[in-house]
């Protein structure tokens, strides 16, 4: 059977008095792609951010390869070397060139020599068809190009897990395809990914497993075929019905 890469046990998170995550259990196997779907405010982004400690869970346990993410063995930067994240709004550093965006962490956190880091960055840019943009500033790029750079930046540390937080939500429809292409390519290479998305058609294509969240709980999970064609829970059915009516599936 497959090896568990990420394990969440009864993860609970409050924002003030507001219960955002309610004892969530989730395990992600190595090379598995898990899509989290659900209405806004269902807690899926928060769940994602708990995994790399951008948000600290109040209760519960999160493990990476069987070791708690709060364990000293990960140290200050070890966890972020193992888990990369790409955001909805790219969050590139606007005052730095594409190349400097990519080499900031390798140079300052992992203490690589500038030349080494830049050579790696250029090779990665080339691979993602962005070779000509090393000296550009983020605002000179299209949304799709910026998001591609954000992917490269997240991959610079060669992480084992990639978290994607609605990475296509801010893009114009004609640019969504190029980003989804990257995700498919990463899946083909065996990257373990947890994806929060509103692109249901894409989730059906790429996911090994789909989890439907509502009010901070995973209400239903299963393989995409079953989830999208024959969901058991009526709330899942209602949600998918709304998606279909909005023409998104």
């Amino acid at each position: 059977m497959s090896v568990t890469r990420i394990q969440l046990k009864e993860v609970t998170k409050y924002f003030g008095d507001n219960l955002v995550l309610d004892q969530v259990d989730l395990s992600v196997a190595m090379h598995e792609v898990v899509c989290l779907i659900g209405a806004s405010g269902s807690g899926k982004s928060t769940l994602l951010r708990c995994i790399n400690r951008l948000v600290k869970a109040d209760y519960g346990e999160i493990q990476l390869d069987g070791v708690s993410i709060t364990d000293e063995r990960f140290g200050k930067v070890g966890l972020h070397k193992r888990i990369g994240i790409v955001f909805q709004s790219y969050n590139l550093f606007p005052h730095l060139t594409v190349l400097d965006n990519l080499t900031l962490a390798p140079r300052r956190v992992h203490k690589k020599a500038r030349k080494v880091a830049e050579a790696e960055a250029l090779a990665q840019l080339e691979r993602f068809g962005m070779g000509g943009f090393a000296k550009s500033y983020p605002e000179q790029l299209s949304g799709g190009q910026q998001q591609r750079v954000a992917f490269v930046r997240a991959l610079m540390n060669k992480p084992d897990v990639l978290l994607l937080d609605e990475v296509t939500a801010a893009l114009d429809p004609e640019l969504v395809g190029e980003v989804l292409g990257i995700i498919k390519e990463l899946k083909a290479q065996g990257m373990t990914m947890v994806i929060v998305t509103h692109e249901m058609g894409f989730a059906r294509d790429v996911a090994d497993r789909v989890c439907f969240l509502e009010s901070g709980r995973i209400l239903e999970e299963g393989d995409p075929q079953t989830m999208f064609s024959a969901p058991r829970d009526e709330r899942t059915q209602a949600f998918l019905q709304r998606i279909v009516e909005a023409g998104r599936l």
Partner: protein
Amino acid sequence: MKPTEMPTQGQTGGATRRPPPPPPGRQFDWREAVVPSLISLVSIVIVFGGLAWVITSAEQWPRIKLQFFNVDAMVAAFPRVLQGFWINMRIWLIVLACILFLGIVLAVVRSLRAPWFAPFRLMVILYIDLFRGLPVLLLVLLFGFGIPALNLPGMPSSSLFWGAVAMVLSYSAYVCEIYRSGIDAVHEGQWAAAKSLGLSEWQTMIYAILPQAVRNVLPAMMNIVVALQKDVALLSVIGVRDAVREAQIYTASTFNYSSLIVAAGLFLLATIPMARLADYVTHRDRKRRLQTGG
């Protein structure tokens, strides 16, 4: 048009579709171009000429002219006042450099969230409350006269030095708050991105947040620079022989105030270009925001 020349796309039924020709360019109309400027020019001449006539025809005008705009007195006072103004400029630059540096350090300390920073954060808050709440003049008097009078061993005893320190302390409190507003204005996503890459809070501040914050506050900072340029003259009250002091010395011996007008002219020569530069920077910043905001 031969069929081969026709575009292949957007054809319907083989009919030639051609866009209408561009509209004729607007003719240059000299009346439209010249008449408004002519009207403004004439009205300026009338209004300012009228004002000048009213002022110069006043009964007291010759006395005013003699007291404030006496050319001989201006020429006589000019070298000393200019020398004083050179001191103003040097103090301004040195004090400015210290303020910009101290302000940024205070703002960073104030903005870092790590718990062990708490005592330093508190110190900065107290510092800002204290120095923003006190008049600069009071601080200049207190430091410029008070500290040299203590004869502290190993400390400079010059009034100029301590007066400048007072200015630095006072202005840094304001500048710190400006930087801080710039730091707060940087989007939360930038912190998240930096943290997710493994940068420490300190590294995030230095490499990701501060450069953006400084760019955010450039217009506000330019105004501080202009204000400081004038406020350096406050040091004249503790005996620093700056432009104002030199002009006063001349006035004291001749009872003619033209020397102060000379000093005023020098200040305007320096501050007006700075103010224009500030406007320009603000304008450019606004354009940049509109571009990236869209």
